[in-house]
């Protein structure tokens, strides 16, 4: 949400952001208004915003803010079309319709370019959690999720597309049996800003031993310690472009 506003050149009109908003750098100095699951209603009201833009959430934030007399707009950023829609709507709401149109057209163009550039489809897994230094406690991206959609656009077919939940807990047996061509891995540290180099060493070291996996033998294990893969915003296209290179490339 914050990223869309900054991309539309509205950075100076952003009164407050959530705890998790770290991009662009200017956003970090804005007043904090709590997090996705624990919004701070008092802090939001104190900023006297003209309108509060929120992501669809399970804590009835919209209704609670409206009850306080605030104007609220709720957006679904869990899909690529949802993000594009939000850009148009926010553009209209803020009188930046032209910039929003240009931003959206640019993003759609890049999405199309990614789609057309897919020459080879590979079977992929994306792990969103794992115990450090061990192949235990793994959680994968399942069906109908934002990351699955992005990978599909870039030529990656999720090997856990048939899982019963959006983020299934899996074991090494499942990985050995499904033997994906590409492993993307995002540790918990992406949220804490762990140094990229140290993270790479952890990931490559721990997977290096599993030579039974095609992705390891063909050097297609990718540590992704960057927030473009977790923040739903205009940079999703950047994430798709990176996926494309990693999926169709010759390996690390």
């Amino acid at each position, binding site marked *: 949400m914050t990223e869309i506003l900054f991309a539309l050149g509205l950075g100076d009109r952003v009164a407050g952001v959530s705890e998790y908003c770290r991009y662009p750098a200017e956003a970090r100095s804005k007043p904090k208004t709590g997090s996705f699951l624990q919004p701070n209603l008092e802090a939001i009201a104190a900023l006297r915003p003209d309108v509060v833009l929120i992501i669809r959430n399970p804590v009835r934030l919209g209704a609670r803010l409206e009850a306080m007399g605030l104007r609220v707009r709720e957006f679904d950023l869990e899909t690529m079309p949802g993000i594009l829609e939000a850009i148009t709507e926010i553009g209209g709401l803020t009188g930046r319709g032209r910039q929003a149109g240009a931003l959206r057209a640019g993003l759609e163009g890049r999405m199309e370019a990614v789609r057309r550039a897919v020459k080879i489809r590979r079977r992929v897994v994306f792990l969103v959690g794992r115990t450090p230094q061990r192949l235990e406690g793994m959680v994968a991206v399942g069906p109908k999720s934002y990351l699955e959609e992005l990978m599909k656009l870039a030529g990656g077919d999720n090997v*856990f597309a048939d*899982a019963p939940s959006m983020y299934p807990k899996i074991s090494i047996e499942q990985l050995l049996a499904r033997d994906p061509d590409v492993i993307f891995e995002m540790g*918990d540290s992406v949220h804490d800003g762990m140094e990229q180099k140290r993270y790479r060493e952890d990931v490559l070291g721990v997977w290096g031993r599993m030579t039974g996996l095609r992705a390891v033998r063909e050097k297609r294990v990718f540590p992704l310690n960057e927030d473009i893969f977790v923040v739903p915003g205009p940079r999703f296209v950047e994430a798709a472009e990176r996926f494309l290179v990693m999926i169709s490339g010759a390996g690390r």
Partner: protein
Amino acid sequence: MKRFVVVMGVSLAVTAMALVLCPLVGPTAMDWRQVGVAGSMEHQIFWLARLPRVLLALLAGGALAMAGVLFQAMMRDALATPDTLGVSSGASLGAVLAISLGWADAGRMGGLWVASLSGAGAVLLLVVALASAGRRLSSFTLLLAGITINSMCVALMLFLQSVTTLGRSLAITRWLMGGVDAVEYRTLGFLALLILPAAAVLIWRAGDWNLLAVGQEWARAKGLDTGARLRLGYAAGSVLAGAVTAITGPIGFAGLIVPHALRMLIGPDHRLLLPASFLLGGAFLAVCDAIGRTVFAPAELPVGVITALLGGPFFLWVLASRATIKG
């Protein structure tokens, strides 16, 4: 003696069957002729995924069941288990503290283990302090004390989770889901080094627990150094419950069903009860985990869900049947 041979023979046979059969169960269809072929998928799944899991379940289930028998003897109450007394929560709180402070960030287990054992030990001391001082606590009081300790530990865990970084709070969430995962053989080795000596000492002095289960005065009158035995009990109980919890996360009710069923089947003799609980408690957890990794494949059901679904109703049934006897 004949009874001992029969009970131990059956227990060993059941556990051996679990060890042989459980690795055969899983979500992947396997060509078993390939298991011996190095480098094949079957070889890797069997040696890296299935066997360590079953071994962990045997060790963890055995330790938790044995801790259950031990606590029942120490508290002289058939409802005492690592869960009901709050010992598992104490261990969990220790582990969550370690994760939230970043001791587990680099994947080292040492800090996690120490914190978990300390948490289990602290709660056990607290409960025993409540239950000692010459009076015997009623089941009712003991369970209420356990509930209180559980609630306090949960509150503190939520607090830690809310103040730590987002990444660590996700790690805590995953740890709390609990479960038996395919751990490294090194981890299994360390766990065995902690659990097996504790179990061996308890079995070796099993006769003493028969005296203590009757009452401390009685045991003292029989010439037993009750203080030393109880201290051994705290230490062994903390190791059994704490070491397992550090690896698997909380697994509810694992220390309940097997000790109870065995008491009904073979009676209260700890010389039989302790070793048989260790063997059959392990087999029980291995079977529960085999179910957990299969029913919702490719996703896994944490083994704690299965043990709770079996153990919860069982516990209520025990409570209800006791109420009718007393009422």
